[in-house]
């Protein structure tokens, strides 16, 4: 699928969401059920989940394009969590993926304890700030037990939630399991391709992709405003200072878009250290850009963008929230820095394993 086809895909998802957007419930305060249903009916909630696991199939790049589109419209629903995290975890572990909104989380060591009991499994612990936990039909949890990695499915009745929201009003609750006993079939050994690192990589990348869409939306809102509004008798777009802001906004936006695409390509090629590096670099760079994009967008919009009535804050508040989720720029910089200083930073940047290729003797 080339760039144009991906653009078409993005346009379709945008169209669905803008047609079905539930304005009453939107704005992040509750799940946007109408958009969700429309997307689900069109098969967009499980892109890249293979058909034998209940999905429509599709490439990672297609899934990435859908997540970018969801970021543009500020979809108030756990699309990344369903398609890209829970769907992937289940499908990779041989479990069919159910319909409906899902979420997923990895339990940090020590956070959640799981033991075998007579009836099946007993799970106990708290996982902090699980995205959309209160909106999910199933919470899929990746838990380590000795040397095993287990995929646990929890239903809303089995957990309690401690409230939490991100700056965009999206649900980020703590999931509390108090000695919950589950049937055997609710716990599966994770598939061979699944790891906590792999989960976090996907989660991190999902926020880069979402930010790339939100950034594009800020750019487009800002451009429209600059075009339509006048000040001192001239359209804003005529002011050199506004032109500079728009150009800078566009540059940073492009950097987030390309970072998301490039990290997706890297993950598509392999899920090892090169992908981990690329995703960390993309998130570090995108999180840094996100703050600038939000600030410049608001600067162009002026006081108007500062009200809940204007659409701008739906994108900027998501940028502010997502830049910190699954590691802010410092978090990823530290890991990149340690990686770069234990090997050759230039090889990391160009994606070259040391000694990957023999010198080409064919030159000249």
């Amino acid at each position, binding site marked *: 699928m080339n760039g144009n086809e991906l653009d078409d895909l993005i346009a379709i998802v945008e169209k669905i969401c803008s047609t079905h957007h539930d304005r009453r419930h939107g704005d992040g305060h509750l799940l946007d059920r109408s958009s969700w249903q429309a997307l689900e009916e069109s098969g967009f909630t499980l892109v890249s989940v293979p058909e034998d696991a209940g999905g429509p199939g599709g490439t990672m790049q297609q899934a990435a394009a859908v997540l970018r589109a969801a970021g543009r419209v500020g979809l108030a629903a756990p699309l990344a969590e369903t398609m890209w995290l829970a769907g992937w975890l289940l499908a990779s572990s041989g479990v069919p993926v159910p319909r409906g909104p899902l979420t997923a989380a990895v339990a940090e060591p020590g956070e959640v304890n799981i033991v075998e009991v007579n009836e099946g499994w007993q799970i106990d612990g708290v996982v902090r700030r699980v995205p959309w936990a209160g909106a999910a039909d199933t919470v899929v949890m990746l838990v380590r037990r000795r040397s095993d990695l287990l995929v646990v499915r929890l239903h809303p009745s089995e957990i309690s939630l401690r409230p939490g929201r991100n700056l965009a009003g999206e649900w980020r609750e703590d999931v509390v399991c108090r000695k919950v006993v589950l049937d055997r079939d609710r716990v599966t050994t994770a598939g061979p391709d699944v790891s906590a690192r792999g989960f976090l990589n996907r989660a991190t990348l999902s926020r880069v992709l979402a930010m790339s869409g939100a950034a*594009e939306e800020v750019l487009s809102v800002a451009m429209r405003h600059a075009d339509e509004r006048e000040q001192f008798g001239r359209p804003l777009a005529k002011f050199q200072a506004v032109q500079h802001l728009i150009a800078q906004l566009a540059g940073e936006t492009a950097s987030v878009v390309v970072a998301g695409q*490039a990290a997706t390509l890297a993950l598509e090629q392999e899920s090892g250290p090169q992908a981990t590096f690329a995703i960390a670099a*993309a998130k570090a760079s995108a999180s840094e850009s996100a703050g600038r994009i939000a600030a410049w967008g608001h600067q162009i919009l002026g006081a108007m963008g500062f009200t809940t009535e204007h659409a701008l804050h739906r994108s900027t508040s998501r940028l502010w929230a997502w830049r910190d989720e699954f590691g802010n720029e410092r978090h990823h910089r530290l890991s990149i820095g340690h990686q770069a200083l234990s090997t050759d930073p*230039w090889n990391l940047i160009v994606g070259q394993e040391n000694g990957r290729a023999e010198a080409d003797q064919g030159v000249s």
Partner: protein
Amino acid sequence: MSLLQLSATTLPRSADALRSSVRGFLAEEREQGRYVPRCDNWLGGIDPEFSRRLGERGFLGLTWPRRYGGQERSPLERFAVTEELLAAGAPVAAHWVSDRQVGPNLLRFGSEDQKRTYLPGIACGQLLFCIGMSEPDSGSDLASVRTQATRAPGGWVVNGSKVWTSGAHVAQAMVALVRTTPEADRHDGLSQLIVDMAAAGVQVNPIRSIDGGHHFNEVVLQDVFVPDEHVLGRIGDGWRQVTSELAYERSGPERLMSTLPLLLEWCKRLRESSAPIDTAYADAVGQLVARCWTLRQMSLAVAAGLADGAMPATEAAMVKDLGAQFEREVIEVIRRHIDLEPDAGSDDPLTRLLAEAILHSPAFTLRGGTTEILRKIVASSLGAR
């Protein structure tokens, strides 16, 4: 529809082998003490001998047809070679504009004769061009060029002067933007001529930069005769030729890598230190490496677009704007973290590289389109004008 047309890409496997070759060449050069890595060496590192050796090994004119001395490699393979030369801080300035701009321009606009005359020499690193665009008082306003070419039998007589002409003191020829139709519109009256630097009436005066180096020149042209066969393309096409090359000129990895040798040297220093890595250093290195990775992906995406026949001039302008900021960021972040006072005469490579980088830094946001020009291009192409 997307406002921006960029798609990330990866280099072909064939680039890996070429990359290894150029690394081998560079290692050999360093081992033999033939060069010392420097910052901004694609401007400051003028070493015709190095350029010649590079040409001999087939690293110049990489994408050009074999019949003109090229290697018929893909632009993305060339990308790998270019970035390796830059990361290594190699002295590539002598041939830089010949290989990056003059060759491709000759291929697109030149006559068959011109191609046969000049391209093989450039590709083997023996023929060095310079480019005469800016003029005194023209600033960023290229269309205000006043150097005048007057019709004469069999050619043109040129009068005027060019400034900021890098490498003019080592070049054998110059592609000069001149005004061939004085009464025409600002853009339509411009043409590009190939001027023999040895011709009568050409005088090169050095302009010394604040780092003490001689990179730039003033080139004074006094009644210089240029025969008709040295007109590039058609008379009156100068503006179109010049602007069409901007995406090539602006998006290359050199637009973000001028200070990379400083970063790599600092990392080396930290790696070789026996002390455990302070989180502040890891943070700083991570910041720069992450940003470099992203901007390289952008530069690569533009290169891929160009290779596919698109003309992503807006995106190239963005890469250059962000790249120049990054080149400065490298300096600022590193200098804060090292307890060294920059000194261009120091024996310590890090101290010297830092000094070089700082003294070259003002140019990053001026050359190849100032920040102001680039942002105008971007905003304007998005509809804000």
